[in-house]
């Protein structure tokens, strides 16, 4: 603690120095700066995916706030009277008319609107890729399980934000999307009919839905998203970032440039780059030209229209259901053509959420893990991920089944059947291939550690034989290839009371599935043995 307040005149200080003293004496910020300013932040291109998500969200906030000053979330009917001639006099909702005004009567309005939409598309994509990075490098392991849950919740919320936003302009496509949601909700047993009735404030489409979605879109969902992002980032600081295996990097340290100044410069500059790229796209490429679609009307629709990309998997899931999956039983309608996609997607989501906990239970590993895995060194996990991606990709492709059919002159039925096969069989094929590829790569790594890499230099031996010279690895390069752990299958052992529990059996079975095929890293002894064999 400091002593009595000093009264003596300090020697002349620079403006920044005096400003920081002024602020600190009122906020105690110096403690934060000391604690955080020189934290080392590990660096790798794959760590940028989360930053892209964060920065595109900031762009969304900025552009969205601008839009709120002009957008009017009302479904009252008006006759359009703006600058876009082809729609003059057409009856539409105030929401649609104000979106047209943003596009055609406010200078720069179209630019901001398009930037908002493009940023939304990038935001969801970046979260998705970020999640894949976390998954395939095992960055969800202890102590980071909560951040996996938070991140996944953000992914779902982002899709919710996107869908509510897409519905706001009340044009033909957004109304059609809502119609599908209405039909989906109505198909849910017991609560469906009433849920739809309450959501739409009466019969579909009603005059309430745009206003309600607006509250979700600009108040409730963003508030939750901002709060979760904040917790997500605080946890990143608490855990310190993971890093890839490299010489000098250990489980006990975090190595990288300091937050101030290098990391701040790179990340801050990267924010402007993301912002700039979105500005470039928004100035050159039209997105969601609602003036071509016209106002919502339950009757017309055109073929080949698509939802935003991140809703595609759900739309595709609906398309893949074979005919006839709906029954009347006990005097009630059971719409399995709707329930099955909902349940399948629900199970998929649960598996994704639960994966870190399942893997930890199978391994029984209670240690903290701060070194990110190379995907090949966790073959079963990587293969499971590949299977999941294939499943998702199949559903997603199904959302374009009509376009695939017309584009490649195939029959609708053929395309649907092929995609059904892809969704059901594809994951197994992907699993098998990914696992084999991982194990092959691990073997190759062992080969390189034991015998060096091919130098490309061919020499002629005295006997006339040609061989390629193998260059041994230096210890730094070698470390990247040998610094991982492999796990062995669990042996079932009776517990204290001499019993083998069902849980034990299940765990042993899963453990065998995970770790039966495994390639251990080269040890010192093996390397020595291989050297003496050569000489």
């Amino acid at each position, binding site marked *: 603690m400091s002593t009595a307040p000093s009264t003596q005149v300090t020697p002349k200080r620079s403006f920044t120095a005096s400003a920081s003293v002024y602020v600190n004496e009122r906020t105690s910020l110096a403690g934060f700066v000391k604690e955080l300013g020189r934290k080392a932040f590990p660096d790798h291109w794959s760590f940028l995916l989360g930053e892209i998500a964060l920065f595109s969200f900031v762009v969304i906030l900025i552009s969205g706030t601008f839009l709120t000053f002009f957008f009017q979330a009302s479904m009252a009917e008006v006759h359009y009277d703006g600058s876009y001639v082809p729609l003059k006099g057409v009856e539409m909702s105030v929401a649609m008319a104000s979106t047209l005004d943003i596009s055609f009567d406010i200078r720069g309005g179209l630019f901001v609107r398009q930037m908002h939409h493009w940023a939304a598309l990038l935001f969801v994509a970046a979260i998705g890729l970020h999640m894949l990075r976390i998954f395939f490098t095992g960055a969800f392991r202890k102590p980071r399980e909560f951040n996996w849950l938070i991140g996944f919740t953000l992914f779902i919320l982002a899709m919710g934000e996107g869908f509510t936003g897409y519905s706001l302009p009340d044009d033909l496509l957004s109304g059609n999307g809502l119609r599908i949601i*209405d039909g989906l909700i109505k198909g849910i047993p017991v609560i469906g009919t009433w849920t739809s009735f309450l959501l739409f404030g009466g019969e579909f489409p009603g005059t309430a839905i745009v206003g309600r979605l607006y509250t979700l879109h600009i108040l409730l969902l963003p508030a939750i998203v901002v709060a979760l992002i904040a917790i997500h980032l605080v946890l990143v600081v608490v855990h310190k970032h993971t890093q890839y295996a490299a010489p000098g990097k250990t489980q006990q340290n975090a190595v990288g440039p300091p937050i101030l100044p290098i990391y701040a410069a790179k990340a801050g500059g*990267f924010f402007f780059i993301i912002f700039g790229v979105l500005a470039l796209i928004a100035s050159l490429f039209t997105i969601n030209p609602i003036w071509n679609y016209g106002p919502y009307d339950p009757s017309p629709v055109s073929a080949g229209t698509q939802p935003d990309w991140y809703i595609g998997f759900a739309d595709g899931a609906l398309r893949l259901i074979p005919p006839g999956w709906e029954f009347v039983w006990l005097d009630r309608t059971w719409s399995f053509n709707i329930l099955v996609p909902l349940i399948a997607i629900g199970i998929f989501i649960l598996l994704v959420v639960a994966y870190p906990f399942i893997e930890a239970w199978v391994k029984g590993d209670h240690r903290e893990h701060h070194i990110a895995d190379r995907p090949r060194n966790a073959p079963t996990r990587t293969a499971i991920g590949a299977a999941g991606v294939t499943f998702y990709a199949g559903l997603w492709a199904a959302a374009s089944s009509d376009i695939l059919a017309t584009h490649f002159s195939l029959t609708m039925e053929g395309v649907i059947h092929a995609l059904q096969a892809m969704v059901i069989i594809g994951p197994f094929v992907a699993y098998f291939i990914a696992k084999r590829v991982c194990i092959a790569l691990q073997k190759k790594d062992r080969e390189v550690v034991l015998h060096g890499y091919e130098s490309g230099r061919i020499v002629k031996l005295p006997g006339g034989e040609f061989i390629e010279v193998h260059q041994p690895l230096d210890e730094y390069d070698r470390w990247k290839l040998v610094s991982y752990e492999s796990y062995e299958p669990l042996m079932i052992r009776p517990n204290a009371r001499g019993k083998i529990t069902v849980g034990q059996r299940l765990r042993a079975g899963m453990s065998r599935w995970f770790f039966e095929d495994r390639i251990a890293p080269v040890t010192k002894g093996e390397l020595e043995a291989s050297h003496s064999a050569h000489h």
Partner: protein
Amino acid sequence: MAQDDHSGTELAAADSSHEALAPTASPGTALISSDAFENPGFPPHRPRVTDEDPKKEKRAQRTVYTLFYLSILGSVWAVAAYMLFPIESNDVGAVRLNNMFIGLGATLALLGLGFGIVHWGKAIMDDVELADERHPIGGSPETQAAAAKVFSDSDKESGFTRRSVIRNSLIGALIAFPLPALVLFRGFAPQDQLPVELLSHTMWAKGTRLALDPSGVPIKAADVTIGSAFHIIPEGLAELEHGKLEEKAKAAVLLMRLEPSELNQAPDRESWSYDGIVAYSKICTHVGCPVALYEQHTHHLLCPCHQSQFDVANHCEVIFGPAKRPLPQLPIAVDDEGYLIAQSDFTEPVGPSFWERS
């Protein structure tokens, strides 16, 4: 987190890496080899070109400030474009120019800043790498014990565990208090309406004329030639002041005329058509999109949303896709003046399935 981890330690050779953070934590089934390689420690630092060649460093500096000046230029350009490319005239081309030039100015401003700052960080700032120590996330045993003591002290002082009657009644009250909020949600839809009732009726009634969508002009049977198809709404819908879209979302109909010999009609429905003219609900029985695509030579209707196909010749039964039920048929007839009219409302609810439907 409370620990001061002396952030900002310069890189030093690392100790052995395989030891986990909490020495007591179980490694589970991990194989820990006693013969594993040791971490060789940090490799020697490699200087960048800008560290070694002052000319290169100069050039990097020039690049950075040029980028910043370009950024200023971009900002100024965007402001100028706002004024130079107005969109006053009813001219879509002007909108495009306004959008593009403001946008490109902003792009230059942002990318100039972004690339400038990143380049400064990468090429000019001292190439420092630091190593922070990690500590177990759970904190030290002392901290954990202190936290546990806070809880046990406050439990003792409040009697939360001991006085179980108060505690349990508190939990009960906490569970009950949100219930009133749930009830409030009933107000989300009009109190005097019931969804099943509304879903079971449409605007069609005995004698309602079939009118063209969207003009609302009634249509005569004589206007419907063989092979043609019309989008139909009930007469009077176009003039509705309120609830037009809600009515249309249930009442939209497709009218088609086939050769009477091509229609396979159920005996009880033979009177529902008129001389090969049939009317079916246009609202898909899957999740409610308009079934708007008619393939004349196959008599198939296609829903663009999930590709359900309906066979008009066979009472619009589903021949492919996720929909289950045929499109409901509207019984039609012709009035004295030759206009097509409905014989009644639909005989079943139209549109997507719902729980109470049977």
